[in-house]
């Protein structure tokens, strides 16, 4: 029976508030002294120096990948990062050519370009109240 289920029998249903309270109280946390005694027993049974765990016991790459992804915030965060990375690559590869060539022609003076000053000196003088 799952804990969330309530017994259909009369006694079980009537007792459910008491059972629920005890379930919610959870497990007791063992004191440091008890933990020390238990670990001392473990050490007496096997007083060998600690060994590295066998490679076959290590978590597989899927488990480790999932741990890294959890650290980053799970699948949604990783998907967002991947999308951003792809967008950056795309912008680098597919930069607009006309803009690139126009800039290059301006810098090396090879193109037939003219610079037009759309705001005259008189405009600035009028704007600053000199006229």
């Amino acid at each position, binding site marked *: 029976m799952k804990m969330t289920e309530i017994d259909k029998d009369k006694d079980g249903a009537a007792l459910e508030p*008491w059972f629920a309270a*005890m379930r919610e109280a959870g497990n007791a946390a063992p004191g440091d002294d008890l933990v020390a005694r238990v670990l001392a027993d473990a050490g007496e049974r096997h007083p060998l120096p600690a060994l590295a765990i066998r490679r076959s016991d290590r978590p597989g790459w899927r488990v480790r990948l999932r*741990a*890294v992804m959890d650290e980053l915030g799970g699948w949604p965060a990783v998907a967002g990062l991947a999308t951003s990375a792809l967008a950056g690559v795309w912008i680098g590869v597919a930069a607009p050519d006309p803009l690139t060539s126009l800039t290059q022609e301006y810098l090396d003076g090879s193109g037939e370009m003219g610079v037009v000053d759309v705001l005259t000196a008189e405009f600035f003088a009028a704007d600053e109240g000199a006229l």
Partner: protein
Amino acid sequence: MPRDTFAELPDDALLRAYAAGDGQAARALTARHLPRVLTHARRLLGQQAEAEDVAQEAMLRLWRMAPDWRPGEAKLSTWLYRVVANLCLDRLRRARALPLEAVPEPLDTGPGVVRALQDATRVDALHGALMRLPGRQREAVVLRHIEGLGNDEIAAIMGVSVEAVESLTARGKRALAAQLVGQRDELGYEDDRD
């Protein structure tokens, strides 16, 4: 990387690592199972100091058994429940019966008690009522309704048939209801779970 590699390993691998002399595996097994072992012993015995002794003894049997553990044959938690129950029953048989003053009484709380105290009161009252049950009924009720185990697993833990588990839990609940449900009105519970 995982913060604690051992915390992700299954019990079988931890037992194998411990049997090979790995102290970190013992720490991981202790962290994973000692709280449940201690709590189960306390529910069956009703006394903290006795429960701690049983928990230590159960874990000692785990360390002894580790080299012989056969992976995949049984759940370690099931094995530990059985060991704890046997140790508790041995102690209860030696003590014959708990002296009346050793049985915790429900707290004497009047009407108007705040909700936060209701749960604590209920836990205390159920604890006292459980201690008045025969040991096998108590074990069956705790495993079924507190630990949430299925009848098949309880039968494996207790070494009886599923029908016997059903009978033990039914008789245990009948006795608990007779002790506890009548207190609801006396204690002025305003239960919102029902």
